[in-house]
């Protein structure tokens, strides 16, 4: 089977992989690069578990081909913490018990980070609408929203 050689940057590191042209970026991340923190919940862009950023834009990695990653800058959950230092969102999610099963958590964290980079002082409604594409079936969202708002507040204070 002929595969395509793809060179890209993931979490700041240059990487190369061979992609079947039918592989999604999600397939490439998980199966070719072993970055399984990004999850597949639906494969149709309806659950957000596969959220990553590509050149700074939040996308569903299940809705992008692996071969499209050529020359792009990809950020995944694995790159969110700065070494041993967790991102404030990651700390606040633990502190607020904003996860139960934890399966949707990587996608929600990546999406929330993208929000706070755009708007460091979102209203509850803005957070809820921004995250509408990230399904969570365990928490009823309450603690997730609180964790994002609290992380935003801390980051504003720190800034």
């Amino acid at each position, binding site marked *: 089977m002929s595969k395509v050689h793809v060179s890209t940057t993931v979490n700041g590191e240059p990487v190369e992989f061979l992609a079947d*042209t*039918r592989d999604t970026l999600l397939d490439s991340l998980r199966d070719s690069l072993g970055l399984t923190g990004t999850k597949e919940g639906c494969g149709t*862009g309806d659950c957000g578990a596969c959220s990553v950023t590509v050149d700074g834009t939040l996308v*569903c990695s299940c*809705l992008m081909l692996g071969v499209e990653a050529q020359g792009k800058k990809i950020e995944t959950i694995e790159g969110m913490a700065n070494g041993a230092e967790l991102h404030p969102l990651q700390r606040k999610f633990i502190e607020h018990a904003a996860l139960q099963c934890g399966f949707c958590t990587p996608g929600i964290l990546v999406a929330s980070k993208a929000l706070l980079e755009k708007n460091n002082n979102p209203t509850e409604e803005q957070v809820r609408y921004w995250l509408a594409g990230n399904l969570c079936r365990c928490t009823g969202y309450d603690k997730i929203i609180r964790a994002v708002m609290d992380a935003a507040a801390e980051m504003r204070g720190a800034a």
Partner: protein
Amino acid sequence: MSVSALLTPWFQRRCVSFVLVCGSTIALWVDLHLTFGQRKCIHKEHRFQKLQGICMNYHSPSSFADAARIAAQATGITRYLAGGTDVLVQMRAGAVTPDDIIDIKNIAGVHDISRTADGGFVIGAAVSGAQMGAHADLCAAWPGVVEGIELVGSTQVQGRATLTGNLCNGSPAADSVPGLVAAGAVAQVVNASGTRDVPIEDIPAGPGRANLAKGDVIASITLPARATGGGDAYMRFTPRTEMDIAVVGCSISLTVDGDTITSARVALGAVAPTVVLVPTAADAIIGTSLDDAAIDALVAAVTAAAKPISDKRGSAEFRKDVVGVLAKRVAKKAYARAKGEAV
């Protein structure tokens, strides 16, 4: 027997996947069924060659002329790839495995929103909803058009979804299309013999189908300059607040002189096999100051124009009820915008 038997297990997934892609109907999946019927016949004859053949050819041309040429020369199933938020869903569901997929995102200008000499907007084929929402002048001139594209999918989908893709996907419920139709936008269609302008309302041909020939590709969509005293708006009805397909959609673009509506275009989504332009609804409010009588006439006109079906997303009766409600709300919003009121 064997071909259809072979297809049967697959067939269901296809219907499902297309329902999800664009709330489509029989017309779409029968159409596909045939495509696949042929494909599988080939598959059976040249099994091993076709085995490799299953691996899809990915093209990344640098000009629309090249893209059109590749498409024209392709022998199997061909798909253009812009945002990919529909085609990848179809591929994941096993509904479509293109032999050739043509990624247009490396063509110069496709990511740009540029202005025409008279102040209109040219929106490149790969411009995402997120880009449009971030474009202040576009949002100020055509808020209804932006409202439409911004309702397509999640924040994540917004990062990729395009006007062109939403249009070519051919869903009667496509949220960005009524706004384009109401705005009087035109698409620049490129093929081997050149480029032509096609009004948006002439492109949808039915659920999942577009009036585009083999080799045709939409390079951009042009919105006219916003006339002074102009305003537009789009609203849809969905059971959830987000992440839904429109059960009914309505967009109205109008201009006012003082309090009087001097021109209007009304477009409806999800109440017919395609997005429809409803001149009778426009006539109902042109020349009025959107008084109660005009609103009643508008509601009557859109309700009469709506020819919805009953499906899993809503009954025909419900759609006929709600299309009037939306038209009333949208008209008031567009009118207020035309008069420069903040809404």
